[in-house]
């Protein structure tokens, strides 16, 4: 039998169909582009694929036990569907996933749960509650041999065999095509309060944020925005101030949220806390942060940098002397969103040169197609990590069928 495969778009509805598609692709050596709804398709390198496989037809919540804090869903399920079901039981995805769709030019809330797990892009609350991958309990997937595999399960603790479930988180569809994920969910944070500081230098702000993280008050958001970034916040009082804005969020039962904010205010008196946002205003503000409101609307390149908090301000200081940047520090400085002017390499060389000194890694989130094709979107890997990555890839997808070129242009 001659191996051939229908090119174009495949949207399997079951594991068996998905497996069949991969088997055909394997037989005909047809590389596949893997996606959910495609809202992150412009993120990462363009895939050299002969056909597209979307998980969007594998949709729906298959199990939800609020009293066990667990939800199982097909990977094509929109995040908005999942969050709506959780909200009915006063629960949520605790990692507060960032909705990248608006900065990439898509409507908010369109991404799928599979896309979220595959990219592992966590939001502000990650510093307290953990990353997307920390909430992954189990997966079902099809590997590059067309085999349906599972790992983990639907219970909170599971060390039976190697943890392939969390390993697939953040693998950008290059190891296996996930068809179902089991997630740990948590009760909603009852009341949100935010302390606001104006005009702190980057160094002072990161210091204050790190002090806040070292208190027992379970701070769930630590953000510092350059004045030029803060100007795009939807909150008039903050945007119109014309200064850098530093935010510290506490979420808890109402009395606890009030108590803890007041304690933090005391602990950070030296930094001059100027405002305390009430729950409604606080929630609206962090919802806007979650969809990166401050970077929406523009086309300039946007980077996501992971580094060590205490080195973040010096890194940005050095970088700002070379490139005209706008920065937002999240995770008390451990995560930095950087907007650069539209340079030919989007500032990649300079950003990575500085990072080599300070430690960490950078991912290009938004850029035009030309820049994207000419730049390393993901942090280039050096030996021995590149060799290990190739081995892991080979263990899951020996023929290199899934998303070739997506993470690294030559693989």
């Amino acid at each position, binding site marked *: 039998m001659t191996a051939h495969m229908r090119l174009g778009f495949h949207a399997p509805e079951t594991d068996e169909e998905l497996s069949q598609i991969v088997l055909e692709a394997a037989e005909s050596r047809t590389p596949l582009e893997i996606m959910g709804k495609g809202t992150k398709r412009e993120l990462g390198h363009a895939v050299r694929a002969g056909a597209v496989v979307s998980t969007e037809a594998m949709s729906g919540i298959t199990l939800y036990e609020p009293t066990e804090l667990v939800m199982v869903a097909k990977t094509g399920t929109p995040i908005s569907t999942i969050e709506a079901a959780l909200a009915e039981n006063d629960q949520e995805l605790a990692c507060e996933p960032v909705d990248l769709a608006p900065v990439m030019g898509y409507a908010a809330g369109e991404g799928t749960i599979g896309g979220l797990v595959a990219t592992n892009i966590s939001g502000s609350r990650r510093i307290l509650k953990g990353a997307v991958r920390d909430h992954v309990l189990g997966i079902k997937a099809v590997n590059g041999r067309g085999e349906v595999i599972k790992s983990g399960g639907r219970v909170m603790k599971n060390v039976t065999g190697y943890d392939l479930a969390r390993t697939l988180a953040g693998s950008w569809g290059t190891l296996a095509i996930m068809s179902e994920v089991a997630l740990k969910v948590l009760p909603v944070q009852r009341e949100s309060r935010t302390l606001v500081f104006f005009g702190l230098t980057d160094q002072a702000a990161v210091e204050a944020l790190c002090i806040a993280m070292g208190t027992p008050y379970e701070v769930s958001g630590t953000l510092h925005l350059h004045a030029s970034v803060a100007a795009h916040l939807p909150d008039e009082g903050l945007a119109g101030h014309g200064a850098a804005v530093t935010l510290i969020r506490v979420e808890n039962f109402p009395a606890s949220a009030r108590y803890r904010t007041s304690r933090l205010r005391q602990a950070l008196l030296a930094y001059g806390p100027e405002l305390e946002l009430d729950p409604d205003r606080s929630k609206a503000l962090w919802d806007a942060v979650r969809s990166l409101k401050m970077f929406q609307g523009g086309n300039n390149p946007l980077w996501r940098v992971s580094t060590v908090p205490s080195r973040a301000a010096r890194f940005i200081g050095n970088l700002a002397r070379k490139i005209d940047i706008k920065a937002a520090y999240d995770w008390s400085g451990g995560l930095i969103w950087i907007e650069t002017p539209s340079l030919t390499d989007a500032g990649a060389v300079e950003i990575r040169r500085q990072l080599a000194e300070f430690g*960490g890694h950078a991912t290009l989130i938004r850029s035009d197609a030309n820049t994207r094709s000419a730049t390393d979107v993901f942090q280039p890997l050096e030996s021995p990590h590149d060799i290990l990555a190739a081995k892991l890839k080979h263990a899951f997808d020996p023929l290199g069928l899934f998303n070739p070129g997506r993470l690294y242009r030559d693989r």
Partner: protein
Amino acid sequence: MSTLPLPDPDRAVLARRNDVVKQLKKLAPQAVLIADVEGRRTFEADALAAYRRLPLVVVLPASTEEVSAILRFCYENHVKVVPRGAGTSLCGGATPLEDAIVLCLSRMNKVLEVDAANRVARVEAGITNIAITQAAAAQGFFYAPDPSSQIACTVGGNIATNSGGAHCLKYGVTVNNLLGVRMVMVDGEIIDFGGHHLDSPNYDFLPLITGSEGQLGVITEASVRLLAAPEGARPVLIGFDSAKAAASCVAAIIASGIVPVAIEFMDRPAIHVCEHFVPAGYPLDAEAALIVEVEGSEDEIEYLLGKIEDIARDYDPISMRRSQSDEESALIWKGRKAAFGAIGQISDYMCMDGVIPLSALPQALEAISLICRKYRFDVANIFHAGDGNLHPLILYDANDPGQLERVELCGAEILKLCVELGGCLTGEHGVGIEKRELMYEQFTDEDIDQQVRIKEELDPSWLLNPGKVFPILGRDALKMTIDLTNLGAAPAVPGQDAEAVAGAVLVEGEERS
């Protein structure tokens, strides 16, 4: 005598023992080398003491470089390596092999750095779990995962098995609290994964390494997340007249939006044994007791415990005691943490580690009691109720020929039940040799093959901790063993209820201690 076979030793390696010892001495001059029979005997088993093998030689290196030199030598000479921390594994994760060296990390036990600004501690892998918290306490921090063996167990072992503990309902397990490791690969190459920052570039190897039971490399250093110690913590002890009421109460607490830092469950036999060992005021007339702990300021604790007690009242508790002081809290926990020791005083026991969905708890406890009765064993149940991680302790007599085999079959049946109810074989102890052959109960051939392929990419010759995690007997072998031995087990005794079983444990405890 034990029922699970270990791989046959390679005679060629056994014959080269003296040469191996000589070479190791030369390659790792700072290491402690234990080559004499008496010394090696100390390492012949871990906490799954039924399985013993005299290792080829035991080596306790002093540095990552020595680990690297040792592994490179073993790689080049095809010598197997069993990594070991404190040897507290309950599943035989560190059971030696006669043709393998035991690479014990316990001398590498230093705190290398407490980075308060970034809330990270960098430590050597042989440090005990509790020592990290001790090193960070002065700056107001602690390391969250707290397995019962935390005084003895090492962080390297915790990473190898992805250890949990009583407080992981709120703080997560080891994988959620690990930022980086330095690992020596099978060929001696030293690789750093992660660091002091969050999230990995490219593939995230940390979750793959965590829980890989020493089969992918030897961890020599770890960077772990430190958390600010809470202002205070206090438990309430609640007794119920049925396990069902206790389980429903747990579900209601979680549904209310409160995530306590710990919810521990004890059944009647466990309550009695623990109370006898440490008089902590456990409710002796209860069928089940919960220890529910919350954290925060005094006011916050009062508020949360008040809410929890309100919820509990809907499930007709027969007793409810809120701890009134730090001393009382410590006592309540002491009873629970001493549980394994207390039961160990009255009997040999096999500690299971299955996980079930919480909603299946009453059904699971009933079935466990039936299974144990069928095999003629008493059982005490202690577990982390918030996450469904069961620890049935099956009491048996190791000196009575045949009982070990029977207790293993009994345990296997309990774990199969956990899988059938939607759970898994092990929540925090690991697979080791103990649950190796049961992997087929949870996984298909394809599932296991996928894991094995990763192992073979990173350790193609299976030199690192072989004979663990993956079944070596094949699907049918296990079924045959169980069917054959089932013939020897007593049938269930009709009419005997759970109370009689519970009573038997109590009487035994009182007579012996």
